[in-house]
């Protein structure tokens, strides 16, 4: 769905650009495989989130992505066919499932990665990936390491990634589209009494989402409030008692957790659970700060603001 939207924007933008600047840029602007305007042999320098200054010769042709966010991004950039490896968690879009599964994305199996003969490896910027990055670079394989934790991170990192893939103009379009899709939801009028929501992330121990994190930002953008927005850690451990005390209007949980909460006797202490106000979330969309974040924000807006303002509609 998202890809279609991007494709439409690409076509639209290409047409307007072409009319202004002539047909010369056309190939570059719509170009999955087209070379960047500056020519393919010119190196680019990029500073990644490890603070390393790296030199690349675009376009990268064989890419291993060790983070679901960048895997999705590659397909949005229409270079999904260059993906030669992914983690076990990268199951979207459907086409990603056909790409070889290389196991974990944090502390990856470097030998399995090298076996795919990539010329670019995209990793999450965690210290658990530091050794893998050093090992890959020692073997002459380019790496880019990004911390994609917040709403603002993805648009920030699309530029350099698209640059290395040789599709900077498509990158620009995707970044703009992601920003626009989020802003479209953010700019909707805020309800005077926003819905107070509790994110149920993990069962044992009971984990939720703290104020600084992406999923809390999403709630805010959708016009709702995270009841644990005051917690500083990204995913704090909380007690059921405290959840009951904060009395959220609605519980957000993945399909399995939602079922558990509904059936668990202890959870009946929370009024929202007794009233059946549990919103089942597709965690692969809402839980990842990827290209579908606008879709995620819109889903939350519809469920938490529009349906609440219009009680007849009920929760989806």
């Amino acid at each position, binding site marked *: 769905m998202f890809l279609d939207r991007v494709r439409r924007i690409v076509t639209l933008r290409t047409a307007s650009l072409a009319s202004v600047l002539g047909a010369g840029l056309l190939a570059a602007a719509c170009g999955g495989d087209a070379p960047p305007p500056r020519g393919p042999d010119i190196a680019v320098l990029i500073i990644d989130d490890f603070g390393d200054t790296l030199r690349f010769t675009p376009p990268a042709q064989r890419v291993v992505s060790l983070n679901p966010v960048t895997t999705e991004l590659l397909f949005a950039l229409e270079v999904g066919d260059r993906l030669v490896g992914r983690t076990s968690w990268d199951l979207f879009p459907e086409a990603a499932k056909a790409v070889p599964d290389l196991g974990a994305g944090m502390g990856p199996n470097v030998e399995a990665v090298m076996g795919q003969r990539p010329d670019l490896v995209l990793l999450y910027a965690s*210290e658990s990936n530091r050794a893998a990055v050093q090992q890959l670079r020692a073997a002459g394989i380019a790496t880019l390491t990004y911390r994609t934790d917040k709403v603002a991170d993805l648009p920030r990192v699309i530029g350099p990634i698209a640059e290395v893939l040789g599709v900077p103009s498509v990158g620009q379009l995707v970044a703009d589209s992601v920003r626009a899709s989020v802003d479209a939801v953010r700019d909707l009028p805020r309800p005077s009494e926003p819905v107070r929501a509790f994110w149920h992330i993990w069962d044992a121990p009971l984990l939720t989402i703290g104020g600084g994190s992406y999923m809390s930002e999403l709630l805010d953008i959708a016009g709702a409030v995270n009841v644990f927005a005051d917690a500083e850690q990204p995913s704090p451990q909380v007690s059921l008692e405290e959840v009951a005390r904060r009395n959220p209007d609605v519980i957000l949980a993945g399909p399995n957790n939602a079922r558990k909460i509904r059936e668990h006797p202890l959870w009946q202490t929370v009024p929202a659970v007794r009233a059946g106000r549990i919103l089942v979330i597709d965690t692969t969309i809402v839980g990842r700060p990827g290209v579908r974040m606008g879709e995620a924000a819109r889903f939350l807006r519809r469920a938490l603001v529009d349906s609440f303002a219009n009680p007849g509609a009920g929760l989806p």
Partner: protein
Amino acid sequence: MTARHWLLLALVVVVAMVLGVSGGAVPIPPGDVLRALLGVGDATQVAIVQNLRLPRIALGLAVGAGLAVSGAALQTTLRNPLAEPYLLGVSGGAAAGAVAAVTLGLASAALLPLAAFLGAVVAVLVVLLVARAVAGHADPRVLLMAGVVVGAFCTALIMVALATAPENTVRGALWWMMGSLGDAQWRGVRWIALYVALGIALLIVWARDVDVLALGEEAAASLGLPVERVTRRIYFAASLLAAATVAGAGLIGFVGLIVPAIGRALGARNTRQTLLASALAGAALVVLADLAARTLLRPAELPLGAVTALIGVPFFLWRLRRMR
């Protein structure tokens, strides 16, 4: 031990190395492995063999030898066949020291083993003091209990340190708790190997003292051995060994428990022989355990510490039964 035994041990180490360099997540035919070792042939295969598998095997040899010799020295000195750095909390102390250094931003390839060493020394002192206060050295079970408790405390300290460190600035808890050779790179491996070699050399030099000590503290003292000083030195070197292995590969248990028994089963006559035999057998054991860790569930890797625990815990229970 006869020359045949030594030859056998050396052969086992060589076989482990050959298997280790041949197996991995990416299947490479033996002929290609050989060419890659010589630095010719396909660039990716050369990189996999030379940059990933060789340093990993080198680290495995160092870690295995270090843990086994540390265990052998502790077992002889404490006259306790269940003593080993992991169960005595020494490795846990080392890990706490290393994590503390990393979270304070003090870690480099050369300094990390030293930070781990400080943690290990503190842990070993606490364990010995507690055990002595409760029961003297006489009761091996109290010593182990103190070790396990101190180890658990160190694990808790690590969890707290990792929880307070900014996210993703320190390697994950699993790496520290369950051990892995996956991060091996020559630069770090050289330092680990150096510290392990130093620890083993010290213990070999002091091996005669350990022989005397093994007669019992009173007997040793009557033979003119400065018991306190000698014991302290042995703990010091055994801690250094454990610390170096933890800095290089995280917590790996039970190697120090199993391997010295192999040395004794082969008929090691004195401490020096036990230490040397343990070094060889330990090196081979860890390289083989790591081979299992990286091939059983490929492309996923099992934590090395889980593999050694799966082998080690049944062995521990069997030893425990025989002690009664």
